[in-house]
C-alpha cells in the first residue's frame, strides 16, 4: 500500500458510521415558559420558576412554573369541583368518548410528543417514537374501552369512583407514566392532580395542550410542576382520596408513612433489581438481544430493568463474550438521531449515582467492562457497562443502579437460580430464557416478582397488570387490575344491608 492509498483508505468512512439522521425539531412549537395547568388553563405558579434542560446538551429548553402548597390547594380544589359537578355525573360512555379523543390526539401529535420526550429526557428518538408514545395512545384506547364496562371490573355491580387522585410520576418514562396514571383514573370516574418529575415536565405540558384540544371538562386533569416539596404537598393534601406514586423506594416509603391512617387509597410502584435468568438451553442469539433490551433499554432507567443477569455457569463465558460483541455495536449519542441506541443519562445527579455505584462495584472486586464508544463533550453520558465476577453480596448486585450497568452472576441448578433471583428486597420483574416450556413455567411459578417475562424482556401492554412484591411496592397498574386501584365496590360503603338479618 502506498502512502497515498493509505491516506485514501483512512478517509473512507465505515458504513457503520452511519451519516447523521437527526429527527427534525420543526414539529415542536415550544413556549419559552410553561405555567401550571389548573382548571383547564395555564397559570403561573407562586414558587420560583425553574428551567428544564436537555440532558444531551445541558441547554435550557423552557422555563417551568413551580407550584407551592397554595397552588396545590387550588389544583386540588379545581379537581374536587370538577369531580362533584361534572366528571362523576358523566356516563361511562361519555367519559370513554373523551379518553378515545385524547388517544387519537396523542397519535396525531405523536411525532411532536416523541421529539419533546427525547429532547427533555435524553432517551433515543427510536424509543420515544416506537415505544413510549405508541404505548401512551394504547393506554388511553384501552381504558377508554373500560369506561362504560366497569361492572365487569371484578368489583361487583356499579363500582364507585374514589374522588380526587393525587399522582406523582418519575422522569424515566415521563409521558408513559402519565398515561398509566391518568387513563385508568379518568375511566373509573376520578379527577386528577398530577405532578411530573422536575427534570422532565415538557411532554406533560404538551399533553395539557392536548387536553384543551380534546375539550376535556375543566379541572378533570390538573398538572402541577415542581420538585419534592410540590409532591409532598400534593400527596399530603387532606382533600385527596387516592395517592398513586411511581418512583424510588425511599420516597415511596415516606409516602406510605404519611398517608397511613388517612383513609387514602395508595398504590406504589417503586424500585427493582430484576433477575434475568439464562439457562443453557436458551435461544442464544435472542437471549443476548433480550439481555441488551433488558438493561440498556432507556439507558437502564427502568424500574423493571433486568439488572442482575443470572447465567447458567456452563454458558457463562459464551454469553459474556457474545454480549460484549453485541454491546460494541450499540451507538451512543444524540438522542434525536434516529440511529441512536443509547441516549443521555437524565440528570447530573443520576449520572453521579451511577458512577458512584460502578466505582463501588470495582472496589468490591467485580470485573468491569465498558463498551468503547465515544462520549459527547457536553451532557450526561455513561457507556454501557457490565460487571462480571459479581458476588451476591456486592452492592451492584443488591442496589438499584438505575443506569446502563449490568451485573453478571452465575448459577448451577434451577433451584439455585430461583434462590438467587428471589434473594433481593425487591420483586418487580424477572426474565427467564429457555427453549423448554416446562422449565419456564416451573421457574416462573417460584419467582417472587410481579411481572415475569419468558424469552423476552421489557415488553408492555395496557391489558397486562404491572406491579411489584416486597419493596417494589403494592397495587397493580394496567389491565382490569389497574382499575381496582381507582374504584371501590358499591357494597363497601353500605355494609348495613347485610347486617339487617336478610339472607
Amino acid at each position: 500500500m502506498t502512502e497515498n492509498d493509505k491516506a485514501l483508505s483512512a478517509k473512507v468512512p465505515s458504513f457503520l458510521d452511519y451519516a447523521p439522521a437527526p429527527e427534525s425539531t420543526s414539529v415542536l412549537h415550544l413556549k419559552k415558559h410553561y405555567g401550571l395547568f389548573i382548571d383547564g388553563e395555564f397559570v403561573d405558579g407562586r414558587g420560583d420558576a425553574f428551567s428544564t434542560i436537555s440532558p444531551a446538551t445541558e441547554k435550557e429548553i423552557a422555563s417551568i412554573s413551580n407550584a407551592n402548597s397554595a397552588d396545590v390547594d387550588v389544583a386540588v380544589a379545581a379537581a374536587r369541583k370538577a369531580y362533584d359537578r361534572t366528571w362523576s355525573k358523566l356516563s361511562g360512555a361519555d367519559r370513554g368518548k373523551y379518553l378515545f379523543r385524547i388517544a387519537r390526539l396523542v397519535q396525531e401529535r405523536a411525532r411532536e410528543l416523541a421529539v419533546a420526550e427525547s429532547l427533555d429526557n435524553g432517551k433515543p428518538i427510536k424509543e420515544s417514537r416506537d415505544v413510549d408514545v405508541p404505548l401512551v395512545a394504547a393506554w388511553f384506547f384501552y381504558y377508554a374501552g373500560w369506561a362504560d364496562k366497569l361492572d365487569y371490573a371484578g368489583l361487583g355491580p356499579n363500582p364507585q369512583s374514589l374522588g380526587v387522585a393525587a399522582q406523582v410520576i418519575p422522569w424515566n418514562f415521563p409521558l408513559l407514566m402519565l398515561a398509566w396514571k391518568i387513563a385508568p383514573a379518568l375511566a373509573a370516574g376520578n379527577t386528577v392532580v398530577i405532578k411530573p418529575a422536575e427534570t422532565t415536565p415538557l411532554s406533560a405540558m404538551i399533553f395539557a395542550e392536548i387536553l384543551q384540544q380534546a375539550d376535556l371538562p375543566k379541572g378533570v386533569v390538573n398538572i402541577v410542576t415542581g420538585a419534592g416539596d410540590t409532591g409532598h404537598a400534593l400527596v399530603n393534601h387532606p382533600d385527596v382520596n387516592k395517592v398513586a406514586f411511581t418512583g424510588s423506594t425511599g420516597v415511596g416509603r415516606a409516602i406510605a408513612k404519611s398517608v397511613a391512617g388517612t383513609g387514602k387509597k395508595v398504590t406504589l410502584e417503586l424500585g427493582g433489581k430484576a433477575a434475568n435468568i439464562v439457562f443453557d438451553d436458551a435461544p442464544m442469539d435472542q437471549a443476548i438481544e433480550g439481555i441488551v433490551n433488558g438493561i440498556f433499554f432507556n439507558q437502564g432507567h427502568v424500574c423493571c430493568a433486568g439488572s442482575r443477569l443470572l447465567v447458567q455457569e456452563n454458558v457463562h463465558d459464551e454469553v459474556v463474550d457474545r454480549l460484549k460483541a453485541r454491546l460494541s455495536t450499540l451507538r451512543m449519542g444524540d438522542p434525536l438521531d434516529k440511529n441512536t441506541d443509547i441516549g443521555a443519562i437524565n440528570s447530573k445527579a443520576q449520572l453521579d449515582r451511577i458512577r458512584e455505584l460502578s466505582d463501588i462495584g470495582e472496589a468490591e472486586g467485580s470485573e468491569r467492562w465498558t463498551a468503547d464508544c465515544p462520549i459527547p463533550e457536553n451532557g450526561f453520558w455513561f457507556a454501557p457497562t457490565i460487571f462480571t465476577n459479581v458476588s451476591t453480596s456486592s452492592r451492584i448486585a443488591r442496589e438499584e443502579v438505575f443506569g446502563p450497568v449490568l451485573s453478571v452472576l452465575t448459577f448451577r441448578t434451577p433451584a439455585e437460580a430461583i434462590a438467587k433471583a428471589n434473594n433481593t428486597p425487591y420483586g418487580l420483574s424477572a426474565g427467564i430464557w429457555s427453549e423448554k416450556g416446562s422449565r419456564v413455567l416451573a421457574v416462573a411459578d417460584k419467582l417472587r416478582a410481579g411481572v415475569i417475562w419468558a424469552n423476552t424482556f421489557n415488553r408492555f401492554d395496557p391489558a397486562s397488570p404491572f406491579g411489584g412484591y416486597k419493596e417494589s411496592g403494592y397495587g397493580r397498574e394496567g389491565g382490569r387490575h389497574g382499575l381496582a386501584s381507582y374504584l371501590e365496590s358499591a357494597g363497601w360503603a353500605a355494609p348495613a344491608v347485610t347486617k339487617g338479618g336478610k339472607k
Partner: protein
Amino acid sequence: MTIESAIALAPAERAVNLIGADLTEKSLKLHLEGLPGVDAVGLEQRAAALGTRSIKTTSKAWALDTIVKLIDLTTLEGADTPGKVRSLAAKAVLPDASDASTPQVAAVCVYGDMVPYAAEALGSSWSNGSDNGINVAAVATAFPSGRSSLPIKIMDTKEAVANGADEIDMVIDRGAFLSGKYGVVFDQIVAVKEACRRENGTYAHLKVILETGELNTYDNVRRASWLAILAGGDFIKTSTGKVAPAATLPVTLLMLEVVRDWHLLTGEKIGVKPAGGIRSSKDAIKYLVTVAETVGEEWLQPHLFRFGASSLLNDVLMQRQKLTTGHYSGPDYVTID
C-alpha cells in the same frame, strides 16, 4: 436407530473436522439437532429493529453503489431467450447508460442452457473464473424443485460448469430434509460440489439454496444452513424466487448469525445470498445494515454477500439518479432489462 443410520456419509472436510471422521447419518442428526433453538418472536423483533436504521446522505450513496456491486442480476423464466440474456448481460456491464460512474453488478444468474450466451455477451467483462469481472451463475440440480435423481443433478451441474458457469446455485432436496434424512441432503451437496470441479482442478463457487419458504421453521433454517456449510457450500442462499415467501429479513438475519458463528468457530468465511422479493432500495439497505451489524462490514463484498434480484437494480438506479440530480426521473429513464 435403523441400520441405515450407521452408513458412513461422503466425507466433506468441514464435517469431518467438526463432527469426526466416522461421520454417519446419526452423528450428523445429533449435531444438527443439538444446535441452540431459535425464538421466532425475538428473531423477528431483532430484524424489525435493524430495519428501522435510517441511512441518509453519504451513507445512502455508499449503500446504493454497494447494492449494485452485490447484485446477481437474474432471469429465470421458461420464456428466456438468448436475446433477453444478452440484454441482461449488457445491463450487467453498464447498468445506467446515463451515468458511467455506476458500478457493475456481481454476476448474471441464468438457467444452465443460457450460460454460453451470457458468457459471450459479457465479453471482456466476463470474469471467466478469475477474481475480476462479472461472473456467470447458473442454477442447477433440477432447479427450482430439486425433484430428480442425483445423477441427473450431477449432469446438470457438470454441463453448466463445462459451459463456463463461474457459480452454481443448487437447490437442496427439501423433501429429504423435512423427513429428517439429513444424510441424503448432505451427500447430494457433497456430490454437487464435486461436480463443480473444473478440468484444471479449480471449483465453480457453490451456492446452496435452502428454499426457506418450504422449511417452515427458523429451527429448520438454522439446521439447513449449518448442514449446507458442513457439506461444503461456499454460499448459503435463501430461496429460488419461485416459492413464497422468498427472502425475508429475519431468515437472512438468522443465516448471517450461522455464518458469524461458523466464522468464530473455524475462521472460515461463508457467503449469504437472500434471493427473491427484494425489490426496493429501501429494503435492500435494511439487508446491508443487517449484514454490517451481524457479521461485520467485511461481508459487504461480492464474494461474501449477494442479492438475487431482477427488479431491484432499476430501483437502485432511480435512487442513484435522484441523489445525483436532486429529483426523481421515473421508470422510463432506466432500461427494463
